[in-house]
């Protein structure tokens, strides 16, 4: 093992491993971008990997490695041994683009990974440092790929025509010549499938859920956080327990009760149920925050003659606005994304929520791009909220995301 921990061994090994990773990534990216067949080539990857890995400690400039790798990829590619092998119909431009991409993806990271590595024997620290850098690079690539690809596929599929999808499922390039016709699936969803109404319904229900949840859980959380009474610990324990009740077990009796009372197929019924699924989470998150607030300010308010409710309204709430924002966002997200209850309790297309509407699109009669367009419509608002208010959202997730 010790004899293998040599810069001249580790460099090429890391180079080959990284080249295999990058070649696969470039092949997938190029396939998705052009719709043509690209596949990683073993011989080319090994050759370039060994070369770049061996050259890195000598050539300390990253751009030099990039040029080296790109040129080698191009030459080997033309010889039919490229690290990214393309189908015959691929144009020269695309081959050059693939080689350049591979060069950049191989040269810069490898030079960063092997920076400061001695050519001879390595200490344990140096060796592990290289391994960690390799894993880090791999991690970034891996996680970005697995997150981006599904969302990319979702958006691009929704912009394709049925014909183009059937012809080549790999081709995600957008035909800009279609102009506004690109958004045909969206237009049809809004015009023929009433998605405008579903959006409104989902929005109204989610906002109502947030409002009712806060209205109920703020006093409850305050009581648990501030007031002393018998059964307080037992109560906060059981709140956690409610988290763990499987929704499907509760949904079955609710379905029965709603069928018998005629509340099924009514949005009122949903508004009755949704807040209760979020109240325990919200109460748990809020009481944690309330505990962190100084009790002295509230006691001063009590001394000045405020009632408990006035204390909550005038002192506690203004102090906990950030927590309220986090809880609201989190509850909004749960209500917006809720699927099971909407699916079980709503049959009437005029009363669907957005998630129920998207579920309706999953049939063999509705083309695939409509389903994906529906998915995009359901995802976009929550993503916009998430990106705009990421700080609050992440805090809400960390505090309450035991649920999900």
């Amino acid at each position, binding site marked *: 093992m010790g004899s293998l921990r040599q810069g001249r061994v580790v460099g090429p090994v890391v180079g080959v491993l990284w080249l295999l990773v990058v070649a696969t990534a470039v092949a997938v990216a190029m396939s*998705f971008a052009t719709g043509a067949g690209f596949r990683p080539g073993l011989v080319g990857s090994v050759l370039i990997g060994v070369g770049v890995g061996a050259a890195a400690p000598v050539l300390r400039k990253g751009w030099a490695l990039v040029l080296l790798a790109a040129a080698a990829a191009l030459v080997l590619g033309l010889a039919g041994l490229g690290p990214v092998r393309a189908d015959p119909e691929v144009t020269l431009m695309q081959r050059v683009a693939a080689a350049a991409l591979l060069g950049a993806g191989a040269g810069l990271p490898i030079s960063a990974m092997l920076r400061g590595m001695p050519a001879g024997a390595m200490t344990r620290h140096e060796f592990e440092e290289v391994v960690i850098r390799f894993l880090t690079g791999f991690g970034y690539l891996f996680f970005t790929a697995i997150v981006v690809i599904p969302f990319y596929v979702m958006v691009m599929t929704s912009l394709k025509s049925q014909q183009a999808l059937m012809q080549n499922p790999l081709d995600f390039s957008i035909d800009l010549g279609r102009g506004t016709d690109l958004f045909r699936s969206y237009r049809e969803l809004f015009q023929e499938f009433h998605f405008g109404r579903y959006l409104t319904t989902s929005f109204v229900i989610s906002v109502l859920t947030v409002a009712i949840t806060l209205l109920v859980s703020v006093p409850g959380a305050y*009581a648990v956080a501030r007031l002393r*009474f018998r059964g307080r610990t037992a109560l906060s324990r059981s709140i956690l327990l409610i988290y763990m009740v499987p929704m499907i077990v509760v949904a079955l009796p609710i379905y029965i009760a709603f069928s018998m009372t005629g509340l099924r197929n009514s949005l009122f019924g949903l508004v009755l149920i949704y807040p209760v699924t979020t109240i325990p989470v919200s109460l748990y998150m809020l009481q944690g925050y309330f505990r962190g607030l100084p009790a002295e300010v509230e006691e001063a308010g009590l001394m000045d003659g405020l009632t408990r409710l006035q204390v909550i309204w005038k002192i506690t709430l203004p102090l906990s606005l950030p927590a309220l924002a986090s809880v609201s966002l989190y509850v909004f997200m749960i209500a917006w994304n809720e699927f099971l209850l909407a699916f079980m309790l709503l049959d009437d297309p005029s009363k669907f929520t957005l998630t129920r509407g998207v579920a309706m699109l999953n049939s063999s009669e509705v083309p695939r791009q409509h389903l994906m367009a529906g998915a995009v419509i359901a995802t976009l608002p929550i993503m916009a909220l998430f990106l705009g208010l990421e700080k609050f959202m992440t805090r809400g997730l960390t505090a309450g995301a035991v649920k999900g």
Partner: protein
Amino acid sequence: MTEAIPPKGTGPLGRREARVAWGLLFPTVFSVAMVILLPLLSIFWISFKPIGLADLRAPVPVVREQIRGRPEAPGDIATVEYRLRNSSRDTVIDAVTLSDRWPPGVTVTGDLPDGCSLTGPVEAGQEFFCNFGTIEGGYNDRFKIDVTLGQAFFDWGGDPEDSEPVVTGRADHVLTNGEFTLENFARLFDGSEFWQVFGVTVIYTVFGTIGALVVGLFAALLLNNDFRGKGVLRGLYLFPYVAPVIAVAFTWVTLFDPTSGSANELLIRMGLTEGGINFFGTRPLALIMVIVFEVWRYFPLSFLFILARLQSIDADMYEAADMDGASPFQKFWYLSLPMLLGILSVLFLLRFIWTFNKFDDIFLLTGGSAGTRTLTVDVYEQAFAISNIGAGAAVAVVVFCCLLVFSIFFFRFISREEGL
């Protein structure tokens, strides 16, 4: 000066505080009791009931009235026909009565059916009333009454079918009667199917939880470094968790479609497979895919928790380790990991319970086919696909009992671990 003695028991102030507390908590307690606890208890009741999806509506007597014949002048004859049926095929209805107000000028010429009577003057319109007693399930019969129509009927001029006959009856609802059965449970534990479902659930839960935890740990270690664009990446890596499950599940189904999915096309172009692979339709691949989806969707959650914990570890410890010459892996193994053990185990337990309870994901991806049916999906399948609510409830009871075991374990553990 006497020694100060702390007060014992609860004084009036304390009692008042408790009253206020329960007052503030009342909406929460009430709503949770109505929507969560009541259904939970009722699931036990339902699981002992022989009830199908069609039995949800209480059986009722249904009646239709028809006038036969074409009366045109006073003295013409007609037939009043009542058709009475039981809406249920197998449930008896007791105390069935029918009452109807007849138009004026209608005189009975033939016999009245058994148990029926007419009261009131013919000129003003008579009250027709029948008492049929008990009718069997699937009962369906007609009663014909021959009548002649007098002048008053034509003076009145209305449509005799306008006045709806009123029927009443008292039927047992299967949910509220005293009939209980053990058949739901007997059938559940009888076949090998249940144990297979249980096994799938365990495999799904264990691998899904551990997978999400390990991948999340890896992601958290990645983002524990400081670099530009870290915030963007952190936001990006949360996408799978934040997006609606329905959107991402359908995207996966589209992506891995056996005939027109991009993943298959990619594999074929790369020469890795000959024909399309049915990712969500073959055993055991479907189960693996469902677990991969679970890991993909929930790694952000563990990553978020672990990252928060990682960042709260004191940097001094690492400096001390550096002084002692610890290598990067040693620092991870001997410093970070022990510090993370608490949050990891809390996450493991919570995620274990939640993965066990998961329904949406599998339901949307495979619908429980190809060996991916877990207990929660089985609840739905039994109750709605096979239309046997009692059997579904029996599975739900099993799920609930498993949950109880987990939560006892969880609270034992969490009282020791101040991780949450």
